[in-house]
Every structure is written in C-alpha cells, then in structure tokens.
C-alpha cells in the first residue's frame, strides 16, 4: 500500500510520462530500445488510458499525447515506431497540424486585406461617376 505522498508523486510522474508520449522522437527512442515490445510496458500503456477521463484529462497541457496513447494500444503502430522515418513523418505531420489554425488565420487575414483593398478602390470610381 502506498502512502498519500507516494500516490501524489506517482500522479505527477504519470502525468509527465503520459505527456512525453506526445513526442514522436521519444516514442521512437522507446521503440528502438525495445520497451514497446515488453508485455508489462504494454499493460502499463493500457493502464494509462485513465488520462482520457475528464477529471484527469483537465491536467494535460499537451493533449496530443492522448491520441498517441490511443495509437500505442495497437501492436502495429508500436512495431512501426522502431523505424526512424516513421517517427520523422509523424513529427512533420504533427507540426503541420499544429500550424493549421495559424495558417487558417493568416489566410483569413489575407482575404480580409484583399477585400479592404477592393473597397478602397471602389469609392474613387463612384465619386467619378457622381461628378459626371
């Protein structure tokens, strides 16, 4: 039986560890050292699924880790992570996805700027037409 202090420490540790899973390079590291093949580790990953519950999830700073955790439940994914190319690909896609909203915002801003430009041009033509 662990004490409350130990429990709290374990909470902290598990919080940090589960969020580390969001890092595909770390996952690649774990895979290359064979951790992902060990049954106790796989069972531990299954145990960590409790972080999906709302009362625990609210402490996560990096929510990408939950998706990675779900994927890690599949043996195929764990096997693929040994490959460095795979980890690199995941990293790239993750960062691109991360930039999705800022890209969208930039596009909207551009569109707005263009629209304002058009509007500025229009009043000048209107005034010309009125004066005639």
């Amino acid at each position, binding site marked *: 039986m662990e004490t409350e202090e130990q*429990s*709290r420490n374990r909470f902290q540790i598990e919080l*940090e560890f589960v969020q580390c899973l969001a890092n*595909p390079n770390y996952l690649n*590291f774990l895979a290359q050292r064979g951790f992902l093949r*060990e049954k*106790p580790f796989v069972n531990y990953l299954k145990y960590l699924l409790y972080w999906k519950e709302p009362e625990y999830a609210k402490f996560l700073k990096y929510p990408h880790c939950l998706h990675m955790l779900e994927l890690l439940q599949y043996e195929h994914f764990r096997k693929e992570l040994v490959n460095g190319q795979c980890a690199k690909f995941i990293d790239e896609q993750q960062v691109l*996805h991360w*930039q999705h909203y800022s890209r969208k915002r930039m596009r909207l801003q551009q569109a707005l700027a263009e629209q304002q430009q058009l509007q500025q041009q229009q009043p000048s033509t209107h005034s010309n037409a009125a004066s005639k």
Partner: protein
Amino acid sequence: MAASDKSTKERLLSVLDDLEVLARELIEMLALSRSQKLPQPGEDTQVLELLVQRDKEFQELMQVAVEQGRVHQEMQTLEKEVEKRDSDIQQLQKQLKEAEHILATAVYQAKEKLKSIDKARKGSISSEEIIKYAHRISASNAVCAPLNWVQGDPRRPYPTDVEMRSGMLGHMSNLSTNGVNGHLPGDALAAGRLPDVLTPQYPWQSSDVSMGMLPPHHGNDFGLEPPGHNKENEDDVEAMSTDSSSSSSDSD
C-alpha cells in the same frame, strides 16, 4: 330417424321403382281380367295393399327429404355466419399485430432516447471548466502554433527534451544510456549538467494545480495479464518512476 345405410335419395328412388313395378302389375292384372277370369283371387287386393303401403312410404320419405333440405339450409346460413366471424377475427388479429409493431418501435426509440440522455448527462462538464481548459492549452501554444513560428523555432506541440528533463521524471537518473536527440529524461542530470536549482519548472507538470489529485489505484504487477483494468504489473515503470530508492536497473 334410425340410421339407415341408404341415403334418402336412394330410398326414394327405390320406392318409386317399387311403385312403378306394382302399378305395372296391377295394370297387367286388370288387362288380363278383361280377357279371362281372375286367376288368383286375392292377388289384386295384395297388389293394391302393397301399392298403398309403398305410397305411404313415399310420402314419409318426401317429408324426410323436406326436413333434410331445411336443416341443410340452416347449416349453410350458420357456415356463412362462421366465415364472417372468422374474417372479423383475422382482421382484428392484423390490426393487433400492427399496433404491437408500432408500440414496439415507439418503445425502442424512447429507450434509445433515454440512453442518449443518460450518456449526455454523464459526460456533462461545466462550460466554465471547458473554457478554462481551452484557454490553458491554447495560451501555452500546445495545440495551436504561435503566430510568429518559423522553421528553427524550438517550440513544439509536445514536451521537448529540455522540458522532459526538468520534470520529476527527469530528476530520476535511473537510465544511464543516451537517448536519441537526448530525449532521455534523467541523463542530463546524471551527467551533472543541470543543477537542480536552475531547472525551470514548466507548467505542463502542473504540480500546484494537481495538489490533491491521486492516480487510480493499481496492484504493482504490470507483468501479469490484467483481469480487470487496474490490477497491472508495474515492473517496468518502477525502474523509471516513483520509488526513489530503486536502483538504476535497466529494464531491457
């Protein structure tokens, strides 16, 4: 009426035959008696008596026939009645079946609705909490890249090695091998490069916010097949986590 093996029709016909024969005999006798004297004295009375008898039988049989006809007609009306009632019952049966089907569908849909209501209620979270959480994960650029991000910016949507090493995990120097890109928590500390005081505390460790929160209980045995979900083996994890007195055993 006694059960007879002959039908009424047959009996009527046989009586008619008898009458025909007797009538013929009588006429023959009358014809003979014209030409010669009565050969047999009592025979004509005999024939006449038989004739009368047969006629009576004939009349009786006709009565029987009439009665039978009446009964038969009654039977037919009753049969018609029975048929009508049968079709009524079948109609009711059809309607009942339809009603049952409609009710079953309605009940099923109502149950589904109740299930979804339950589900929604279970998952209900206060909007304030959601907004707070959304704010937390967005403000730290964990889910959305900062607007001034360019290639070469070290920030990432996951904890980087520096951040990993600065947490509780990082402070346990159990694993002595070097990681890829130095992503191994603990090695920097083991090498003595980052003194404790200078390690920055990143908010993703949230030690202050999570005070009082405890992880789910589990038996210390992650190596065994878990019967339920919480009794799992933690052999591997122990090498990396809580117990500060654990030796730096490599779990490979």
